[in-house]
């Protein structure tokens, strides 16, 4: 819009010079003073700002993730600020309409990273088009950091290999998939589930088939791996596949371990283990940067 505005200003200026029409000079004066005012107010808007990076809970490649910055202004207020990461492959920006003095405002943005791995962050770009949206003024706040982007979330194409550690308790029986630990609760019997697990007395009183759930009844241990020698798209696909498998298995209550070239993650369960697996997968292939960051 600013470019068109400048063209119009130039045209009006030519018209004023051409015709000597004082009213065109008046309009030209207004247009030029708006340009000056835009510059001064934008500059004032970006003064006395300090920015800190709060970051994100988890960034997955190829999908928007919530990213946050904390922005503060010591004196005076600022308007219409947009924040984004400078010189990084991250796309997206966050905005704040009104920033009063003194209080930190947390700006949230939905950023997107195109690929897995560590992303070096060098600074935060703060831009404003205040007051009239004609011209944008930008200031970059140098702020070093690293954002670790996890593999893209997707479906696992292959089932995991056989469990490294089988059922606890009785011998493994391919037809019997349930465990035999302590009783944990009752649950309605699902389709194709083993009818021998039905608690007949409770089912009779409830009027529907209820099965007995036992502790550790479905927990097994899997070791997922990424083979040495993979690179490029193949490596990416494998990382995504392992991440998806790990997610599915951990969700199902199993323990999952990870074997990577040069790295091994002991089997574990829960979201912490999943985070560890994702982190390890994210660094895979970027070990040099990891050493630098350390």
């Amino acid at each position, binding site marked *: *819009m600013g470019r*068109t*505005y400048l063209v*119009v200003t130039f*045209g*009006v200026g030519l*018209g004023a*010079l*051409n*015709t*000597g*029409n*004082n*009213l*065109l*000079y*008046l*309009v*030209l*004066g*207004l*247009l*030029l*003073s*708006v340009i*000056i*005012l835009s510059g001064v*107010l934008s500059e004032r808007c970006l003064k006395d700002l300090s920015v800190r990076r709060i970051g994100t809970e988890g960034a997955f490649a190829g999908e928007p993730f919530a990213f946050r910055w904390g922005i503060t202004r010591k004196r005076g*207020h600022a*308007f*219409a*600020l*947009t924040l984004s990461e400078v010189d990084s492959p991250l796309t997206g920006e*966050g*905005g*704040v*309409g*009104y920033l*009063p003095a003194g209080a930190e405002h947390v700006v*949230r943005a939905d950023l997107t990273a195109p690929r897995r791995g560590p992303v070096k962050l060098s600074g935060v770009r703060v831009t*404003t*088009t*205040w*007051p*009239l*949206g*004609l011209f944008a003024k930008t200031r970059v706040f140098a702020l070093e950091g690293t954002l670790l982007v996890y593999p893209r979330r997707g479906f696992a194409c292959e089932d995991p290999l056989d469990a490294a550690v089988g059922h606890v308790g009785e011998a493994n029986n391919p037809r019997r998939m349930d465990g035999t630990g302590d009783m944990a609760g009752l649950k309605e019997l699902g389709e194709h589930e083993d009818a021998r697990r039905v608690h007949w007395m409770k089912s009779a009183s409830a009027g529907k088939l209820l099965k007995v759930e036992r502790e550790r009844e479905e927990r097994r241990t899997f070791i997922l791996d990424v083979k040495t020698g993979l690179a490029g798209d193949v490596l990416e696909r494998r990382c995504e596949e392992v991440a998806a498998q790990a997610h599915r298995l951990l969700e199902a209550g199993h323990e999952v371990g990870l074997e990577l070239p040069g790295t091994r993650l002991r089997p574990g369960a829960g979201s912490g283990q999943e985070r560890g697996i994702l982190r390890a997968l994210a660094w895979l292939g970027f070990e040099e940067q990891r050493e630098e960051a350390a």
Partner: protein
Amino acid sequence: MTRPNRLRLILRDLGTGAAFASMAVSGQLPIWALGLFAVALVVALTGRRPFSRLPRLTAVLLVPLAGALYLAVASGRMDLVVAACSFAGLVAGQRLLSETSPSTDGQVLLAGLLMVAGGAALSGELFFAVCLMAFAVLASLSLGLAVVEAAVPVGEPVPVREVMRPLAKGTLFALLGAVAFFILFPRLNWNVGARRASPGLGTATSGFSDTVRLGGSGTLKSNPRVVLRATLAPDPGTEQLGAYWLGRTYDTFDGQEWSTIGAPKKRSRTRVTLRPGADKQVYQKVELLPAYGSRTLIALETPSKLGNALVHTSTGTRRTQLQELGGDELRFVVEGLGYSYEVYSVPPGTDTDPGKLEQLEHDQLLALPDNLDPRVTELARQVLGDEKDPLTAANKLSSWLQREYTYTLELGGDVTDPLTEFLFARKAGHCEHFATALTLLLRSQGFQARLATGFFGGERIGDEYILRAGDAHAWTHVLVPGRGFVTVDATPPAFRANQSLELLESLVSIYEAIESAWRSSVVDYSFRDQMNFVRDLTRPPRAPGDKKRLDLPPMRAWVTAVLVGVAVYQAWRYLSRRKPRTKALEATRFVDAVERQLAAVGVKPRDGETLEDVSARLTREAHPLAPAVSPLTRRYLEARFGQRALQPGESAQLLKGLKLAIAALPPEEKHQQKARA
């Protein structure tokens, strides 16, 4: 749609309306363009956007309209600038009714900007300034809100109240900046495509055409716009002048229209003498205002000499020539926004030369229309009897018409024989009916007479007399042998002058005063005015009645100097705040002072030696200053690196101790130290 959105859109739409109004006040846009835009604006203000479903189709509809406008321009039926302005209005209307989006908003406001520029090209009106200001304020507020709205995350409220105040302040500064720019920007003029400015708000009088059709509606009499200003010498000193101001005369009446048989003279002159002057002539300096809307010169009856005319155009003022036409009419050769000229007139009641009249023109003063109703002649004979003196006869007929007929502006449409209608049917009419009736009744009895048109009246404003459009009038000239043409007015005296409401006149007078100031200080602001402005600010004033300048500059020069000083200081403060210099630390200043004092007695640090090293050296050498320097060094290190800043006045106290120690040095020691140094 959320509330802030609605407010922003209303501001945007109103701003666009103001931009269109800046063109519309020129009165040059075609009525269909006005109508279409007005409808679009009203619909948009109600919050409906009917074109949002068919954005492309409605945009494509503009193409045939553009084609039609092009054809109108190509065929000469429409001015190019007017066509462009009309099209800009249509585009703005189409965008107003389209779906709202950031790009649409931008397009609407850019179209508004173009329309404002078009308005500047079309109109010199005071209302243009109002529209420009309204557009600037409304568009700025709308744009500012849009910018903030775009930065606010979806679902969060837009801080309208917080935004409005700084926006309003910024807009005010922009307007002040525009004024400053306007005053100071050098007026360069390539003058390649200057346009004539418009006549102004409302209808101009345009009362002087080659013909006068009897029986017009006569609404001109209630038009209070000022069309002429004149300074008279000698000054009559009366509040109401009650004089006849002549524009032109007509000698031929065909039953419906008055015209003149005299052919225009091809030669143009800067000064024209119509008749020999009398001893005591009335000098007039006349200014015809844009509301006059005609090129015919006006002068107090009976004009003898006219000239030194200046034409005021949008590009400046320059001399112009006059052309003589039939009916004693003088016309400016070039068209302008307004005119100034000088006139000498013979005082009323003086015998005058009727001017050079050819035989044909003489005969025409007795000519009657072919289809004149015989009752007219009979009526004249009945009123006049066997009266032979033309002036007495004219006065008799005039008195009779004033007594027997009534004045009215309420007239119907065209009639076949307006004179018969007036004399025998309606028995009511306005000044043209009375003047025509008197003229033809006189002619029917063999007295030479003609119709004169111009203005009647003169209202004193300050040292000047003004005439309003409603003062337009018609009367009769009777040719009296030996005396020339004598004015006889058959219109009842109460209805001769302007008949607008007093309140309306007051309001229009205020408007005219503001508009006059607007024209003189804005529209006609020239490079010379700029130079005068700067010179007046800086040069000392002349003492009253003395050509010598005063020694001291005027108060305004001091005020200007102070203002400029404040502006420079503020700018310096702003810039120095932007790039703050690194302040020297208090501890560093302290160590510098210590080193200076030590250097004064020859104790200087060697290359790379710090104060700590110097102190250690002095201690090793058992120097008499070592006990004084040692605590200073410790304190400096604490202040510089130990985060225990020097207290106010502490450094002075410490330095005082060092000075005392130096002063206590034996003189021979001082000499040795200096010699060693």
